[in-house]
Protein backbone atom coordinates (compact mmCIF):
# COMPACT_ATOMS: atom_id res chain seq x y z
CA UNK A 1 0.00 0.00 0.00
CA UNK A 2 1.43 3.36 -1.07
CA UNK A 3 -0.58 6.30 0.22
CA UNK A 4 -0.05 9.85 1.45
CA UNK A 5 -1.08 9.13 5.02
CA UNK A 6 0.46 9.25 8.50
CA UNK A 7 -1.44 6.49 10.25
CA UNK A 8 -4.10 4.28 8.63
CA UNK A 9 -6.30 4.71 11.71
CA UNK A 10 -6.08 8.50 11.64
CA UNK A 11 -6.95 9.23 8.01
CA UNK A 12 -10.44 10.63 8.64
CA UNK A 13 -9.32 12.80 11.55
CA UNK A 14 -6.31 14.10 9.63
CA UNK A 15 -8.37 14.80 6.51
CA UNK A 16 -11.02 16.75 8.45
CA UNK A 17 -8.35 18.76 10.23
CA UNK A 18 -6.83 19.73 6.88
CA UNK A 19 -10.22 20.50 5.43
CA UNK A 20 -11.12 22.88 8.24
CA UNK A 21 -7.78 24.65 7.85
CA UNK A 22 -8.33 25.05 4.11
CA UNK A 23 -11.96 26.12 4.22
CA UNK A 24 -12.55 27.82 7.54
CA UNK A 25 -14.56 30.50 5.72
CA UNK A 26 -17.24 27.93 4.84
CA UNK A 27 -17.28 25.24 7.45
CA UNK A 28 -16.38 24.25 10.95
CA UNK A 29 -15.95 20.96 12.74
CA UNK A 30 -18.08 20.18 15.77
CA UNK A 31 -15.64 19.66 18.64
CA UNK A 32 -14.80 16.01 19.42
CA UNK A 33 -16.76 14.70 16.44
CA UNK A 34 -16.29 13.92 12.75
CA UNK A 35 -19.16 16.26 11.91
CA UNK A 36 -18.62 19.19 9.56
CA UNK A 37 -21.24 21.94 9.59
CA UNK A 38 -21.86 25.24 7.88
CA UNK A 39 -19.98 28.01 9.56
CA UNK A 40 -23.24 29.92 10.14
CA UNK A 41 -25.24 26.88 11.39
CA UNK A 42 -27.89 26.77 12.66
CA UNK A 43 -29.35 29.14 10.07
CA UNK A 44 -32.41 30.68 11.62
CA UNK A 45 -35.72 30.04 9.88
CA UNK A 46 -34.21 27.31 7.70
CA UNK A 47 -34.73 23.56 7.64
CA UNK A 48 -31.42 21.80 8.29
CA UNK A 49 -30.19 19.36 5.65
CA UNK A 50 -27.73 16.66 6.69
CA UNK A 51 -26.04 13.90 4.77
CA UNK A 52 -23.15 11.64 5.53
CA UNK A 53 -21.80 8.16 5.31
CA UNK A 54 -18.45 6.47 5.21
CA UNK A 55 -15.42 8.53 4.24
CA UNK A 56 -13.41 7.79 1.11
CA UNK A 57 -15.98 9.34 -1.25
CA UNK A 58 -14.58 12.88 -1.18
CA UNK A 59 -15.69 15.49 -1.98
CA UNK A 60 -18.81 13.72 -0.63
CA UNK A 61 -20.08 14.66 1.80
CA UNK A 62 -18.32 17.50 3.59
CA UNK A 63 -17.50 19.12 0.25
CA UNK A 64 -21.19 19.87 -0.16
CA UNK A 65 -21.60 21.70 3.13
CA UNK A 66 -22.44 25.35 2.60
CA UNK A 67 -25.03 27.81 1.43
CA UNK A 68 -27.61 26.24 -0.83
CA UNK A 69 -26.70 22.62 -0.11
CA UNK A 70 -25.95 20.80 3.15
CA UNK A 71 -25.93 22.22 6.66
CA UNK A 72 -23.96 19.28 7.97
CA UNK A 73 -22.03 16.21 6.88
CA UNK A 74 -21.36 13.28 9.20
CA UNK A 75 -18.13 11.54 8.26
CA UNK A 76 -17.74 7.89 9.19
CA UNK A 77 -14.57 5.83 9.07
CA UNK A 78 -13.48 4.88 5.55
CA UNK A 79 -16.40 3.07 3.85
CA UNK A 80 -18.12 2.70 7.25
CA UNK A 81 -21.32 4.38 8.32
CA UNK A 82 -20.98 7.06 10.99
CA UNK A 83 -22.40 6.18 14.41
CA UNK A 84 -25.73 7.45 15.83
CA UNK A 85 -24.11 9.71 18.45
CA UNK A 86 -22.25 11.59 15.70
CA UNK A 87 -25.35 11.91 13.54
CA UNK A 88 -27.33 13.11 16.57
CA UNK A 89 -24.67 15.75 17.28
CA UNK A 90 -25.04 16.98 13.69
CA UNK A 91 -28.83 17.12 13.96
CA UNK A 92 -28.63 19.11 17.21
CA UNK A 93 -26.08 21.50 15.74
CA UNK A 94 -28.01 22.42 12.59
CA UNK A 95 -31.59 22.44 13.87
CA UNK A 96 -32.94 25.99 14.00
CA UNK A 97 -36.33 24.78 15.22
CA UNK A 98 -37.70 24.12 11.72
CA UNK A 99 -36.60 20.51 11.66
CA UNK A 100 -33.89 18.52 9.91
CA UNK A 101 -33.88 16.40 6.77
CA UNK A 102 -31.52 13.41 6.70
CA UNK A 103 -30.35 12.36 3.24
CA UNK A 104 -29.31 8.71 3.55
CA UNK A 105 -27.74 6.48 0.93
CA UNK A 106 -29.34 3.06 0.92
CA UNK A 107 -26.83 0.86 2.71
CA UNK A 108 -27.70 -1.38 5.65
CA UNK A 109 -25.30 0.35 8.03
CA UNK A 110 -26.23 3.89 7.06
CA UNK A 111 -29.93 3.08 7.32
CA UNK A 112 -29.61 1.65 10.83
CA UNK A 113 -27.32 4.35 12.21
CA UNK A 114 -29.35 7.24 10.76
CA UNK A 115 -32.61 5.66 11.96
CA UNK A 116 -31.25 5.29 15.48
CA UNK A 117 -30.08 8.91 15.44
CA UNK A 118 -33.47 10.07 14.13
CA UNK A 119 -35.21 8.22 16.98
CA UNK A 120 -32.89 9.86 19.52
CA UNK A 121 -33.45 13.34 18.02
CA UNK A 122 -37.22 12.89 17.97
CA UNK A 123 -37.08 11.86 21.62
CA UNK A 124 -35.47 15.26 22.24
CA UNK A 125 -38.29 17.01 20.42
CA UNK A 126 -36.46 17.74 17.16
CA UNK A 127 -38.51 17.19 14.01
CA UNK A 128 -36.68 14.83 11.67
CA UNK A 129 -37.51 13.60 8.17
CA UNK A 130 -35.55 11.02 6.19
CA UNK A 131 -35.07 10.44 2.51
CA UNK A 132 -33.30 7.39 1.17
CA UNK A 133 -31.34 7.61 -2.08
CA UNK A 134 -31.20 4.42 -4.16
CA UNK A 135 -30.15 5.49 -7.65
CA UNK A 136 -27.86 2.58 -8.63
CA UNK A 137 -29.60 0.62 -11.39
CA UNK A 138 -26.88 -2.06 -11.32
CA UNK A 139 -28.68 -3.63 -8.37
CA UNK A 140 -31.95 -5.42 -8.75
CA UNK A 141 -34.66 -3.67 -6.77
CA UNK A 142 -36.69 -5.91 -4.52
CA UNK A 143 -38.67 -5.47 -1.34
CA UNK A 144 -37.13 -8.71 -0.05
CA UNK A 145 -33.54 -7.58 -0.25
CA UNK A 146 -31.51 -4.59 0.81
CA UNK A 147 -32.44 -2.92 -2.47
CA UNK A 148 -30.55 -0.48 -4.62
CA UNK A 149 -27.50 1.39 -3.42
CA UNK A 150 -27.17 5.14 -3.24
CA UNK A 151 -24.30 6.49 -5.38
CA UNK A 152 -23.41 9.70 -7.23
CA UNK A 153 -27.02 10.72 -7.90
CA UNK A 154 -27.13 11.61 -4.19
CA UNK A 155 -25.31 14.86 -5.01
CA UNK A 156 -28.38 16.02 -7.00
CA UNK A 157 -30.54 15.32 -3.95
CA UNK A 158 -28.20 17.43 -1.79
CA UNK A 159 -28.35 20.26 -4.31
CA UNK A 160 -32.10 20.31 -4.83
CA UNK A 161 -33.19 19.75 -1.22
CA UNK A 162 -30.57 22.27 -0.08
CA UNK A 163 -31.80 24.89 -2.55
CA UNK A 164 -35.42 24.60 -1.43
CA UNK A 165 -34.41 24.65 2.24
CA UNK A 166 -32.42 27.84 1.57
CA UNK A 167 -35.63 29.49 0.30
CA UNK A 168 -37.25 28.93 3.70
CA UNK A 169 -39.51 26.00 2.78
CA UNK A 170 -40.98 23.74 5.47
CA UNK A 171 -39.54 20.36 6.41
CA UNK A 172 -42.42 18.60 4.62
CA UNK A 173 -41.75 20.60 1.44
CA UNK A 174 -38.02 19.93 1.52
CA UNK A 175 -38.64 16.23 2.17
CA UNK A 176 -41.12 16.09 -0.74
CA UNK A 177 -38.73 17.67 -3.24
CA UNK A 178 -35.90 15.40 -2.06
CA UNK A 179 -38.13 12.36 -2.65
CA UNK A 180 -39.11 13.67 -6.06
CA UNK A 181 -35.41 14.00 -6.92
CA UNK A 182 -34.76 10.42 -5.80
CA UNK A 183 -37.63 9.20 -7.99
CA UNK A 184 -36.15 10.93 -11.01
CA UNK A 185 -32.45 10.13 -10.69
CA UNK A 186 -30.67 6.98 -11.88
CA UNK A 187 -26.99 6.09 -11.96
CA UNK A 188 -24.65 3.30 -12.87
CA UNK A 189 -20.92 2.89 -12.50
CA UNK A 190 -18.03 0.72 -13.62
CA UNK A 191 -14.52 0.09 -12.32
CA UNK A 192 -11.18 -0.37 -14.05
CA UNK A 193 -9.13 -0.93 -10.88
CA UNK A 194 -9.87 -1.68 -7.22
CA UNK A 195 -9.12 0.56 -4.24
CA UNK A 196 -7.47 -0.04 -0.87
CA UNK A 197 -9.07 0.94 2.44
CA UNK A 198 -6.09 2.33 4.42
CA UNK A 199 -6.78 0.30 7.57
CA UNK A 200 -7.20 -2.91 5.53
CA UNK A 201 -3.92 -2.34 3.67
CA UNK A 202 -4.81 -4.32 0.56
CA UNK A 203 -7.29 -3.98 -2.28
CA UNK A 204 -10.89 -4.91 -1.48
CA UNK A 205 -11.24 -6.96 -4.67
CA UNK A 206 -9.25 -7.95 -7.70
CA UNK A 207 -9.54 -7.13 -11.37
CA UNK A 208 -7.27 -8.65 -13.97
CA UNK A 209 -5.08 -6.55 -16.23
CA UNK A 210 -7.73 -6.40 -18.96
CA UNK A 211 -10.75 -6.88 -16.76
CA UNK A 212 -13.42 -4.36 -15.76
CA UNK A 213 -16.53 -4.63 -13.59
CA UNK A 214 -19.75 -3.20 -14.95
CA UNK A 215 -22.11 -1.93 -12.27
CA UNK A 216 -19.47 -1.69 -9.54
CA UNK A 217 -20.62 0.09 -6.37
CA UNK A 218 -18.72 2.90 -4.66
CA UNK A 219 -17.24 0.58 -2.02
CA UNK A 220 -16.18 -2.03 -4.51
CA UNK A 221 -19.38 -4.02 -4.21
CA UNK A 222 -19.89 -6.22 -7.22
CA UNK A 223 -22.03 -5.11 -10.09
CA UNK A 224 -23.63 -6.95 -12.97
CA UNK A 225 -20.63 -8.63 -14.53
CA UNK A 226 -16.89 -8.78 -14.87
CA UNK A 227 -15.93 -8.43 -18.48
CA UNK A 228 -12.93 -7.56 -20.59
CA UNK A 229 -12.00 -3.96 -21.26
CA UNK A 230 -14.00 -2.27 -24.00
CA UNK A 231 -13.92 1.11 -25.70
CA UNK A 232 -15.20 4.19 -23.86
CA UNK A 233 -18.07 4.40 -26.36
CA UNK A 234 -19.13 0.83 -25.64
CA UNK A 235 -18.92 1.34 -21.88
CA UNK A 236 -20.90 4.59 -22.05
CA UNK A 237 -23.50 2.80 -24.15
CA UNK A 238 -23.85 -0.08 -21.65
CA UNK A 239 -24.18 2.19 -18.62
CA UNK A 240 -26.59 4.57 -20.31
CA UNK A 241 -28.74 1.76 -21.71
CA UNK A 242 -29.20 0.33 -18.23
CA UNK A 243 -30.13 3.77 -16.90
CA UNK A 244 -32.57 4.49 -19.73
CA UNK A 245 -34.29 1.13 -19.32
CA UNK A 246 -35.10 2.15 -15.77
CA UNK A 247 -35.80 5.85 -16.29
CA UNK A 248 -38.13 6.08 -19.24
CA UNK A 249 -37.49 9.34 -21.10
CA UNK A 250 -39.48 10.70 -24.02
CA UNK A 251 -38.39 13.04 -26.79
CA UNK A 252 -37.93 16.61 -25.54
CA UNK A 253 -37.58 15.55 -21.92
CA UNK A 254 -35.01 17.57 -20.03
CA UNK A 255 -32.19 16.00 -17.99
CA UNK A 256 -29.11 16.90 -16.00
CA UNK A 257 -26.13 14.62 -16.63
CA UNK A 258 -23.33 13.77 -14.19
CA UNK A 259 -20.19 12.02 -15.39
CA UNK A 260 -18.46 11.15 -12.14
CA UNK A 261 -14.87 9.99 -11.73
CA UNK A 262 -14.25 7.39 -9.02
CA UNK A 263 -10.95 8.85 -7.85
CA UNK A 264 -8.23 7.86 -10.31
CA UNK A 265 -9.81 8.60 -13.66
CA UNK A 266 -8.37 11.45 -15.70
CA UNK A 267 -10.80 14.18 -16.65
CA UNK A 268 -9.80 13.39 -20.23
CA UNK A 269 -11.45 9.98 -19.97
CA UNK A 270 -14.57 11.39 -18.33
CA UNK A 271 -15.01 13.81 -21.25
CA UNK A 272 -14.50 10.93 -23.69
CA UNK A 273 -17.33 9.10 -21.92
CA UNK A 274 -19.50 12.20 -22.12
CA UNK A 275 -18.93 12.54 -25.86
CA UNK A 276 -20.82 9.28 -26.34
CA UNK A 277 -23.43 10.01 -23.64
CA UNK A 278 -24.33 13.35 -25.22
CA UNK A 279 -24.43 11.76 -28.68
CA UNK A 280 -26.87 9.06 -27.55
CA UNK A 281 -29.10 11.56 -25.75
CA UNK A 282 -29.09 13.87 -28.77
CA UNK A 283 -30.15 11.00 -31.03
CA UNK A 284 -33.04 10.33 -28.68
CA UNK A 285 -33.88 14.04 -28.72
CA UNK A 286 -33.45 14.32 -24.99
CA UNK A 287 -32.45 17.82 -23.98
CA UNK A 288 -29.43 18.17 -21.68
CA UNK A 289 -30.12 21.07 -19.33
CA UNK A 290 -26.68 20.91 -17.75
CA UNK A 291 -23.72 18.52 -17.61
CA UNK A 292 -21.46 18.00 -14.60
CA UNK A 293 -18.13 16.33 -15.33
CA UNK A 294 -15.65 15.68 -12.53
CA UNK A 295 -15.24 13.97 -9.19
CA UNK A 296 -18.39 14.17 -7.09
CA UNK A 297 -18.64 10.80 -5.33
CA UNK A 298 -15.36 8.93 -5.42
CA UNK A 299 -14.18 5.59 -4.16
CA UNK A 300 -10.68 6.31 -2.84
CA UNK A 301 -8.23 5.68 -5.70
CA UNK A 302 -10.51 3.48 -7.78
CA UNK A 303 -10.34 4.08 -11.53
CA UNK A 304 -13.66 4.11 -13.30
CA UNK A 305 -16.71 6.27 -13.62
CA UNK A 306 -20.41 6.50 -13.03
CA UNK A 307 -23.08 8.15 -15.11
CA UNK A 308 -26.14 9.76 -13.51
CA UNK A 309 -29.21 11.16 -15.21
CA UNK A 310 -31.72 13.36 -13.41
CA UNK A 311 -35.01 13.92 -15.19
CA UNK A 312 -36.00 17.53 -14.65
CA UNK A 313 -39.29 19.38 -14.47
CA UNK A 314 -39.54 23.14 -13.99
CA UNK A 315 -39.26 22.95 -10.21
CA UNK A 316 -36.24 20.65 -10.22
CA UNK A 317 -34.36 22.61 -12.88
CA UNK A 318 -34.99 25.90 -11.06
CA UNK A 319 -33.63 24.42 -7.83
CA UNK A 320 -30.68 22.84 -9.62
CA UNK A 321 -29.83 26.27 -11.06
CA UNK A 322 -30.21 28.07 -7.73
CA UNK A 323 -27.20 29.57 -6.00
CA UNK A 324 -24.89 27.24 -4.07
CA UNK A 325 -21.56 27.98 -2.48
CA UNK A 326 -19.74 24.92 -1.21
CA UNK A 327 -16.21 23.62 -1.62
CA UNK A 328 -17.09 21.15 -4.35
CA UNK A 329 -20.22 22.55 -5.91
CA UNK A 330 -20.80 26.17 -6.83
CA UNK A 331 -23.60 27.82 -8.79
Amino acid at each position, binding site marked *: MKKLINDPNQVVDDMLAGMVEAHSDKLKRLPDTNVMIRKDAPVSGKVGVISGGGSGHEPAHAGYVGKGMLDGAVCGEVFTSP*TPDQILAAIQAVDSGKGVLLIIKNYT*GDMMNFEMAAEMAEAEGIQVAKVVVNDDVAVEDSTYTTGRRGIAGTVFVHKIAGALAEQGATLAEVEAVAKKTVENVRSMGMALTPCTVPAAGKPGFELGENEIEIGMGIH*GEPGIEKTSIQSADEIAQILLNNILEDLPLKEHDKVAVMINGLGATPLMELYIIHKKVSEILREKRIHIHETFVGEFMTSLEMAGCSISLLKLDDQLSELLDAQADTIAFKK
Partner: protein
Amino acid sequence: MLWDVEQAKKWIKRLNDKIQENKAYLTELDQAIGDGDHGLNMARGLQEAASKIANSHYDDLGSLFKDVGMTLIAKVGGASGPLYGTAFMKASLVLKDRKEADRNAFVAAFSAALDGLKMRGKAQVGDKTMIDVWDPVIAWMKSHETIRANELVDLSKEKMEDTKELEAKKGRAAYLGRRSVGHLDPGAVSSYLLFASLAESFEKGESAP
Protein backbone atom coordinates in the same frame (compact mmCIF):
# COMPACT_ATOMS: atom_id res chain seq x y z
CA MET B 1 -25.49 -22.08 39.38
CA LEU B 2 -25.64 -18.42 38.56
CA TRP B 3 -24.04 -16.17 35.98
CA ASP B 4 -22.70 -13.02 37.62
CA VAL B 5 -20.98 -9.73 36.87
CA GLU B 6 -17.51 -11.29 37.06
CA GLN B 7 -18.45 -13.93 34.50
CA ALA B 8 -19.98 -11.29 32.24
CA LYS B 9 -16.74 -9.29 32.47
CA LYS B 10 -14.73 -12.41 31.65
CA TRP B 11 -17.02 -13.02 28.67
CA ILE B 12 -16.48 -9.55 27.20
CA LYS B 13 -12.73 -9.83 27.75
CA ARG B 14 -12.62 -13.22 25.99
CA LEU B 15 -14.86 -11.93 23.21
CA ASN B 16 -12.53 -9.00 22.66
CA ASP B 17 -9.52 -11.35 22.60
CA LYS B 18 -11.20 -13.54 20.01
CA ILE B 19 -12.23 -10.59 17.87
CA GLN B 20 -8.70 -9.16 17.94
CA GLU B 21 -7.26 -12.58 17.01
CA ASN B 22 -9.74 -12.86 14.15
CA LYS B 23 -9.63 -9.24 12.99
CA ALA B 24 -7.89 -9.99 9.70
CA TYR B 25 -9.97 -13.13 9.13
CA LEU B 26 -13.28 -11.28 9.61
CA THR B 27 -12.11 -8.50 7.32
CA GLU B 28 -11.09 -11.05 4.69
CA LEU B 29 -14.50 -12.73 4.87
CA ASP B 30 -16.13 -9.33 4.49
CA GLN B 31 -13.92 -8.43 1.55
CA ALA B 32 -15.20 -11.52 -0.23
CA ILE B 33 -18.90 -10.63 0.01
CA GLY B 34 -19.23 -7.27 1.74
CA ASP B 35 -17.24 -4.09 2.02
CA GLY B 36 -14.28 -5.38 3.99
CA ASP B 37 -14.66 -3.51 7.25
CA HIS B 38 -16.22 -6.03 9.64
CA GLY B 39 -13.02 -7.10 11.40
CA LEU B 40 -11.71 -3.53 11.65
CA ASN B 41 -14.98 -2.21 13.04
CA MET B 42 -15.57 -5.02 15.51
CA ALA B 43 -11.97 -4.87 16.72
CA ARG B 44 -12.22 -1.11 17.31
CA GLY B 45 -15.57 -1.38 19.14
CA LEU B 46 -14.81 -4.43 21.29
CA GLN B 47 -11.46 -2.99 22.33
CA GLU B 48 -13.27 0.12 23.60
CA ALA B 49 -15.98 -1.92 25.30
CA ALA B 50 -13.47 -4.25 26.98
CA SER B 51 -11.38 -1.33 28.26
CA LYS B 52 -14.49 0.46 29.47
CA ILE B 53 -15.80 -2.42 31.57
CA ALA B 54 -12.36 -3.48 32.81
CA ASN B 55 -11.98 -0.04 34.34
CA SER B 56 -15.48 0.22 35.79
CA HIS B 57 -17.30 -1.26 38.75
CA TYR B 58 -20.75 -2.74 38.23
CA ASP B 59 -23.32 -3.58 40.87
CA ASP B 60 -25.58 -5.27 38.36
CA LEU B 61 -25.47 -7.03 35.01
CA GLY B 62 -27.86 -4.51 33.46
CA SER B 63 -25.46 -1.58 33.80
CA LEU B 64 -22.58 -3.67 32.42
CA PHE B 65 -24.63 -4.71 29.37
CA LYS B 66 -25.77 -1.12 28.89
CA ASP B 67 -22.18 0.16 28.88
CA VAL B 68 -21.17 -2.47 26.34
CA GLY B 69 -24.19 -1.64 24.16
CA MET B 70 -23.62 2.12 24.24
CA THR B 71 -19.92 1.67 23.47
CA LEU B 72 -20.61 -0.60 20.51
CA ILE B 73 -23.23 1.79 19.13
CA ALA B 74 -20.80 4.71 19.38
CA LYS B 75 -17.59 2.98 18.28
CA VAL B 76 -18.27 0.18 15.80
CA GLY B 77 -20.09 1.94 12.97
CA GLY B 78 -21.30 0.13 9.89
CA ALA B 79 -24.25 -2.19 10.40
CA SER B 80 -22.63 -4.25 13.16
CA GLY B 81 -22.56 -1.31 15.58
CA PRO B 82 -26.31 -0.70 15.69
CA LEU B 83 -27.00 -4.45 15.57
CA TYR B 84 -24.72 -5.65 18.38
CA GLY B 85 -25.33 -2.40 20.28
CA THR B 86 -29.09 -2.86 20.13
CA ALA B 87 -28.73 -6.51 21.21
CA PHE B 88 -26.80 -5.54 24.35
CA MET B 89 -29.15 -2.64 25.12
CA LYS B 90 -32.23 -4.88 24.89
CA ALA B 91 -30.59 -7.51 27.10
CA SER B 92 -29.64 -4.80 29.61
CA LEU B 93 -33.31 -4.03 30.19
CA VAL B 94 -33.95 -7.64 31.24
CA LEU B 95 -30.84 -7.68 33.46
CA LYS B 96 -31.51 -4.34 35.13
CA ASP B 97 -30.74 -4.44 38.88
CA ARG B 98 -29.71 -8.11 38.73
CA LYS B 99 -26.41 -8.94 40.40
CA GLU B 100 -26.58 -12.35 38.82
CA ALA B 101 -28.75 -14.17 36.36
CA ASP B 102 -30.37 -17.53 36.93
CA ARG B 103 -31.09 -19.71 33.94
CA ASN B 104 -34.43 -18.05 33.17
CA ALA B 105 -33.09 -14.50 33.35
CA PHE B 106 -30.06 -15.51 31.30
CA VAL B 107 -32.23 -16.96 28.53
CA ALA B 108 -34.68 -14.02 28.71
CA ALA B 109 -31.79 -11.57 28.27
CA PHE B 110 -30.39 -13.33 25.19
CA SER B 111 -33.89 -13.73 23.83
CA ALA B 112 -34.45 -9.96 24.17
CA ALA B 113 -31.12 -9.41 22.42
CA LEU B 114 -32.31 -11.53 19.49
CA ASP B 115 -35.58 -9.56 19.33
CA GLY B 116 -33.50 -6.39 19.19
CA LEU B 117 -31.40 -7.77 16.31
CA LYS B 118 -34.51 -8.69 14.35
CA MET B 119 -36.12 -5.31 15.01
CA ARG B 120 -33.02 -3.38 13.92
CA GLY B 121 -31.87 -5.50 11.01
CA LYS B 122 -35.22 -6.73 9.69
CA ALA B 123 -33.57 -9.99 8.66
CA GLN B 124 -35.16 -13.43 8.81
CA VAL B 125 -33.68 -16.88 9.26
CA GLY B 126 -32.13 -17.92 5.94
CA ASP B 127 -31.10 -14.41 4.83
CA LYS B 128 -27.42 -15.26 5.44
CA THR B 129 -26.92 -12.96 8.43
CA MET B 130 -26.06 -13.23 12.12
CA ILE B 131 -29.72 -14.18 12.69
CA ASP B 132 -28.88 -17.59 11.22
CA VAL B 133 -26.70 -18.20 14.28
CA TRP B 134 -28.68 -16.29 16.89
CA ASP B 135 -32.15 -17.64 16.17
CA PRO B 136 -31.38 -21.38 16.50
CA VAL B 137 -29.02 -20.79 19.45
CA ILE B 138 -31.67 -18.87 21.41
CA ALA B 139 -34.33 -21.47 20.52
CA TRP B 140 -31.97 -24.16 21.82
CA MET B 141 -31.32 -22.18 25.05
CA LYS B 142 -35.07 -21.84 25.61
CA SER B 143 -35.67 -25.56 25.26
CA HIS B 144 -32.79 -26.74 27.47
CA GLU B 145 -32.83 -26.61 31.23
CA THR B 146 -29.05 -26.86 31.36
CA ILE B 147 -27.02 -24.79 28.96
CA ARG B 148 -23.81 -26.70 28.47
CA ALA B 149 -20.75 -24.84 27.29
CA ASN B 150 -19.61 -27.46 24.77
CA GLU B 151 -23.08 -27.77 23.25
CA LEU B 152 -23.34 -24.00 22.89
CA VAL B 153 -20.01 -23.87 21.06
CA ASP B 154 -20.88 -26.79 18.79
CA LEU B 155 -24.32 -25.50 17.85
CA SER B 156 -23.22 -21.92 17.14
CA LYS B 157 -20.29 -23.24 15.09
CA GLU B 158 -22.53 -25.53 13.06
CA LYS B 159 -25.05 -22.75 12.38
CA MET B 160 -22.24 -20.35 11.44
CA GLU B 161 -20.86 -22.89 8.97
CA ASP B 162 -24.31 -23.40 7.49
CA THR B 163 -24.37 -19.78 6.28
CA LYS B 164 -21.82 -20.76 3.65
CA GLU B 165 -24.47 -22.38 1.48
CA LEU B 166 -27.05 -19.62 1.85
CA GLU B 167 -27.78 -16.86 -0.66
CA ALA B 168 -27.62 -13.42 0.99
CA LYS B 169 -30.85 -11.44 1.19
CA LYS B 170 -29.76 -8.69 3.59
CA GLY B 171 -26.67 -6.57 4.04
CA ARG B 172 -24.08 -5.76 1.42
CA ALA B 173 -23.63 -9.40 0.46
CA ALA B 174 -27.17 -9.27 -0.94
CA TYR B 175 -25.81 -7.34 -3.96
CA LEU B 176 -23.98 -10.51 -4.95
CA GLY B 177 -27.11 -12.64 -5.08
CA ARG B 178 -26.13 -16.17 -6.11
CA ARG B 179 -22.45 -15.19 -6.03
CA SER B 180 -22.69 -14.96 -2.21
CA VAL B 181 -23.12 -18.76 -2.00
CA GLY B 182 -19.92 -20.52 -0.95
CA HIS B 183 -18.82 -17.78 1.46
CA LEU B 184 -19.37 -17.61 5.22
CA ASP B 185 -21.34 -14.62 6.46
CA PRO B 186 -18.92 -12.42 8.46
CA GLY B 187 -21.66 -11.39 10.94
CA ALA B 188 -22.49 -15.04 11.55
CA VAL B 189 -18.81 -15.69 12.25
CA SER B 190 -18.54 -12.82 14.76
CA SER B 191 -21.76 -14.08 16.38
CA TYR B 192 -20.20 -17.54 16.67
CA LEU B 193 -17.20 -15.94 18.41
CA LEU B 194 -19.66 -14.19 20.75
CA PHE B 195 -21.31 -17.47 21.77
CA ALA B 196 -18.02 -19.39 21.90
CA SER B 197 -16.58 -16.82 24.32
CA LEU B 198 -19.85 -16.82 26.27
CA ALA B 199 -19.42 -20.57 26.77
CA GLU B 200 -15.89 -19.94 28.07
CA SER B 201 -17.31 -17.65 30.74
CA PHE B 202 -19.35 -20.46 32.28
CA GLU B 203 -17.81 -21.61 35.51
CA LYS B 204 -15.25 -24.38 35.04
CA GLY B 205 -16.38 -24.63 31.42
CA GLU B 206 -19.37 -26.68 32.53
CA SER B 207 -22.68 -24.97 32.02
CA ALA B 208 -24.56 -21.71 32.38
CA PRO B 209 -27.04 -21.17 35.21
